């Protein structure tokens, strides 16, 4: 198309390619990429962005989806998981949207993906420096439990004033004997900003610490993007004499691949299959578990 072509109306020119099925126009992608760059430059800082209306409900991955759509190119391969699972309905829905509107390839194998979009988990496989992890974030503000006023929250982050966060952890410990924070454990990023680790389990937090891959966090409803660049410290907030604890249940192992049993030699994040005569356990990262089974690593 050229500006001089008389057969094309100015409106059509402005409207650009209306046959495109893409959900984000180039201006929106540019804005999101700029927010991502700012986030990478200031690890753990929540960068406001406009957040477009997506064809998925807010709170259902609209932030992660916008980051993925702004980053994805023809060479990319995308993996989408929810609770560690590729086949979950929400993961399937988002994968379908991404593939249908961008034409990008998809995979379930973490090692084959250039972008992994996830809700609530980090894959068990360590990601490399050519991979980006995109996390869907429902609540980006780690201090909301101790402060609601947004103006005060901005001051606290700006001044690195996390005293009330420490007090709340201390009170928790005194009252309950352990720190009861479950998922989304607050972490100090790069020694500067306290960050909400979405609701990923504590199990996954060491996988963000000084990792080779880039982690991007997208909160569509709350219009914030933040990042953990490669090789950045992600330190869970805890006291010198109170070790940070990840989820472990004594005696639990995956009933399919055996991960977690003493002779398997590996551990993974397990979820429970409750049953009437005691529960069974299974790996939450289904693809990792399947590959262990099919590669014959597991004596059945």
């Amino acid at each position: 198309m050229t500006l001089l072509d008389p057969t094309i109306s100015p409106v059509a020119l402005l409207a650009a390619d209306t046959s495109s099925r893409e959900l984000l126009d180039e201006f929106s992608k540019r804005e999101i990429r700029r927010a991502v760059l700012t986030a990478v430059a200031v690890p753990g800082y929540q960068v406001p962005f406009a957040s477009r209306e997506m064809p998925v409900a807010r709170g259902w991955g609209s932030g992660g989806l916008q980051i993925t759509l702004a980053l994805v190119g023809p060479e990319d391969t995308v993996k989408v998981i929810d609770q560690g699972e590729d086949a979950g309905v929400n993961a399937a829905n988002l994968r379908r949207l991404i593939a249908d509107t961008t034409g990008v390839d998809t995979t379930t194998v973490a090692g084959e993906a250039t972008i992994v979009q996830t809700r609530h988990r980090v894959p068990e496989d360590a990601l490399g420096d050519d991979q980006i992890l995109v996390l869907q974030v429902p609540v980006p503000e780690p201090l909301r439990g101790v402060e609601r006023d947004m103006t005060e929250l901005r001051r606290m982050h700006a001044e690195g004033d996390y005293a009330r966060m420490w007090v709340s952890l201390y009170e928790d410990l005194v009252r309950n004997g352990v720190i009861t924070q479950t998922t989304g454990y607050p972490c100090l990023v790069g020694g500067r900003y306290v960050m909400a680790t979405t609701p990923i389990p504590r199990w996954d937090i060491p996988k963000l610490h000084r990792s080779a891959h880039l982690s991007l966090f997208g909160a569509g409803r709350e219009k914030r993007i933040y990042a953990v660049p490669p090789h950045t410290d992600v330190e869970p907030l805890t006291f010198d004499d109170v070790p940070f604890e990840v989820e472990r249940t004594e005696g639990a192992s995956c009933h399919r691949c055996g991960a977690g049993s003493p002779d398997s030699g590996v551990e993974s994040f397990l979820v429970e299959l409750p049953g009437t005569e005691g529960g069974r356990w299974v790996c939450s990262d289904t693809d990792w578990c399947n590959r262990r089974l099919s590669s014959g690593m597991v004596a059945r």
Partner: protein
Amino acid sequence: MGYVAARGGTEAIAAAEELVRRSRLNADASWLELDQLTERLRYLNDRVMGEGGLWAPQLAARAIRQAEGDVIEAAHLLRAHRSTLPRLCELIPADADELRPLRRIVPAFREVPGPQLLGRTLDYTGRLLDLGDEDQARAAAAAATAAAARHPEDDPAENAGATEPPFPERLLDVLRRTDLAVDRRRDDDPEPTDISQVAVRPGIGRSAVLSVMARAETGALVNLWYRNILGPDNHLHEVTLGEVRHGELPIRVRHPRTGNPVLLGHLRATEVEAIEDLDGADEDRTRFDVGYGLVAGHNERKAIAMANLDIALHRDHSDSGLEQSVLMTTDGLDASGFLEHLKLPHYVTFRSMIERKQAMRTDRARNERKGRRHHPAPVVTPAAEQAAVPAGEVTP
């Protein structure tokens, strides 16, 4: 085993969509035409356009039909559609003095400049369920439609009493002339903020706050108003309404070549001015103040709530959290999207929660063995004792 067993999410989604599609097409009822919605369910259509932030009656009707009448879902369809469209130009700011009233009431005075014009309203119609005969109603509707087609100039539906220019002066103009109104017109927020292009947060300009309310979920604004009037929040006074208008607002754009204003069309809007008697220590008790509400379509309760909240926010100086409540909690898509995300699988988080419960018990048991108590002993009921199981085995 719930979600874990639900393999093949794509197939499950496709099957659910097929169920929806089939019942939409084959509902044992005639096909729902768009004009049924735009002409006969006007309030519904207007509300979806207002909360969707897009004036497009036909598209709103499609959205309502597709969403099977779910207002927020329909507003979501409109907004998601709009966000894929290119922005071709900016409109010339519309002047609300050009709103051609189809309805206008001034509760503050009996006699006002210009008419008290009831127009098309259900306000004074007894709330008696019409149990009339369907066939007769159908025949009457057909006859009325035919009559209207013969004499379109007599159509009473839209134009009854509609005023022609010059439009009635506002009550606020009278108050200003008689020096009874605080003038808070200001010029420090000249470019209206486009809330679809920025992340609003407390401290943002009034144009953004007004835009947020104009696009807010109707019930959320009404509830915020009511809980302030009746509930514990108490940041609002009951106001006297100066103007309640519903009418047609001309929309113009500047011609890209000549630069002249060009009329694109009209949208209907509801406009409200709420007169407030401010009584704070630092407020001018000798004058009234005024809050402003303007929403797309015919939606008086939303416009009234908006006008009252506008003046409350002005006097609040961002002190009470009301501003944050308005900006961050009144959007229908945000609130319902987040609420409904609870339906998504949460078994990773729940497993982590159970693990902490067990960690607390383990810690407690260890301390009891050592005869120490670092923390208050829990109140253990017989039921809880029964539920106590060894670590690693949790009953569902």
